[in-house]
């Protein structure tokens, strides 16, 4: 690590956002909306554009529409919903009516376009510093940010850590197979590039949105799915986490719980599940009836090649001691991500500052700040997946905004109903909605 001297620390930037994905963009947009100038914010990211890493993942699983609804957007405010904007763009009442019934879901393509437009309007790229922050050090009144070569990149008064997910989980048998047969591309993680061939049986491990998206892609391509989940499949929840966590109505009782009970509720709330969109319901029902979809509760314990070069997958069902061998042409592991505390930057912070964790969660204050690293006038906060302790739906756009709006108060001051402030906000909101740049 380079020596820190007052000379090389430079002048501290008021806010540093570490990470350049959607959570970073949302934090940036909210701060800009609250009147923080672009030159007072730096975004440290190796990615050129918000959504770049995310798009690769959703393209790999073939996801076309979002799980989020009309308010799942990058405006700093909940209004207008994407359905309202589409109503005016397409001159059709359909989006708004769908939204009244919580059935409106934007496309992946429209979200990427919207992210790009908003980023441009708020001058996101003006604040972007191309660097991957690997280490954060706390000083009494600021934070020092270092890159992977342990070179000092910047000093910031406040830091918002928005680093996204840790690495995807690969089950042991999948890892073992890939190590044994590195040239064999038939066993993959969900986010690896892969081809779907009609008529072939695919074994998909996992029970969340990625797994179900893979099922749909395979079924629609004429393939057959053997879906395996260790804990069984949970269908029907529209959003990733129950809706109640999107406001104080659910957050209040959750936050009032004792640590153990709060953790238990959080584990339950963030448990993988599969939405039953109108189209999907029909596809699943038909595939189940035609034998193109088999749901198996069990644990994949081994993957081997048989004498005909087919894949033999060993599955042990709960309560059974007899392993079952299932034949498939390909295996896809759609088993989610490691907990956020495994993200190298967060893991390093936990180790360096002995930050409290409970089960797999980083313990945060309800405003998403890390208590041990925050002092009056200099806070360290976390947004996105890693802030689930404060906001169970932290992995959603709505959850990211709840956190970002709280944090914004520490930088821009508390919101008031002062007429001048209301006018300023209305002007900025109108500028964003009508595609103009924020001054």
């Amino acid at each position, binding site marked *: 690590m380079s020596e820190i001297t007052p000379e090389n620390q430079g002048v501290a930037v008021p806010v540093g956002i570490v990470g350049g994905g959607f959570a970073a963009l949302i934090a940036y947009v909210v701060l800009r909306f609250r009147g923080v100038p672009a030159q007072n914010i730096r975004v440290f990211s190796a990615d050129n554009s918000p959504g770049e890493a995310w798009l690769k993942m959703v393209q790999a699983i073939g996801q076309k529409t979002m799980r989020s609804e009309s308010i799942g957007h990058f405006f700093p405010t909940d*209004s207008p919903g994407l359905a309202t904007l589409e109503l005016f763009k397409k001159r059709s009442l359909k989006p708004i009516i769908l939204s*009244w019934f919580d059935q409106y879901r934007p496309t992946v393509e429209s979200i990427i376009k919207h992210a790009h437009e908003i980023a441009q309007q708020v001058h996101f790229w003006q604040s972007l510093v191309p660097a991957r922050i690997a280490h954060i050090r706390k000083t009494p009144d600021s934070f020092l940010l270092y890159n992977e070569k342990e070179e000092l990149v910047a000093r910031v008064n406040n830091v918002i850590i928005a680093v996204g997910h840790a690495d995807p989980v690969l089950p042991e048998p999948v890892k073992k197979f890939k190590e044994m047969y590195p040239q064999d591309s038939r066993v993959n993680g969900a986010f690896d590039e892969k081809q779907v061939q009609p008529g072939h049986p695919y074994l998909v491990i996992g029970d969340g949105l990625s797994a179900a998206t893979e099922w749909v892609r395979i079924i629609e391509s004429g393939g057959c799915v053997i879906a395996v989940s260790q804990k069984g499949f949970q269908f029907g929840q529209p959003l990733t986490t129950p809706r109640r966590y999107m*406001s104080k*109505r*659910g*957050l*209040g009782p959750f936050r009032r719980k004792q640590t153990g009970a709060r953790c238990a509720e959080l584990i339950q709330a963030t448990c993988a599940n599969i939405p039953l969109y109108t189209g999907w319901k029909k596809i699943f029902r038909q595939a189940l009836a035609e034998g193109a979809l088999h749901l198996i509760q069990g644990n994949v314990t081994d993957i081997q090649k048989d004498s005909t070069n087919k894949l033999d997958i060993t599955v042990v069902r709960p309560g059974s001691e007899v392993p079952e061998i299932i034949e498939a042409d390909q295996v896809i592991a759609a088993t989610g991500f490691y907990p956020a505390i495994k993200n190298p930057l967060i893991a390093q912070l936990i180790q360096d500052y002995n930050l409290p964790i409970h089960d797999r969660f980083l313990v945060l204050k309800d405003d998403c700040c890390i208590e041990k690293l925050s002092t009056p006038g200099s806070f360290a906060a976390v947004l996105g997946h890693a802030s689930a302790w404060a906001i169970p739906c932290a992995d959603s756009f709505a959850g990211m905004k709840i956190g970002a709006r709280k944090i914004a108060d520490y930088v821009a001051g508390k919101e008031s109903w002062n007429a001048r402030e209301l006018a300023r*906000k209305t002007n900025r909101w109108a500028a964003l909605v009508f595609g103009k740049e924020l001054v």
Partner: protein
Amino acid sequence: MTLATLHGRLQTKAVTYLLALTTALVFVLATGNSAYWSLFAVMAIVGLVLETVWGLVITHQPGWVAFVFALAEFGYTAALAAVLGIPVSLAAGATYYTVTWIVTQLIVIYLFPVWYTKWADDGREIW
């Protein structure tokens, strides 16, 4: 979509009465019938009682439910106004209610989240 707390429902409802009051003023001035003040008072009482009920019964309110609640609110308001003998015809009362409801909905849905960005996060609580 609404995930309001009971306090949030009542606080937001109370604030929207400033709009309802303004609409009542416009109707009084336009028609010369001061009974719109009484109609506003009845609507305010019915509205607060119903919001309390909805707040206790409902956690998540999808958009379409707002129309059902509006119909219920108008029905009870009209009934109470008739019982109290407020001299406003059903058609005139319906016009007043509809105008007030539309203006209120537009401001609540589109502008409240702008003026106070944490309004929805705080379960529609304002203070």
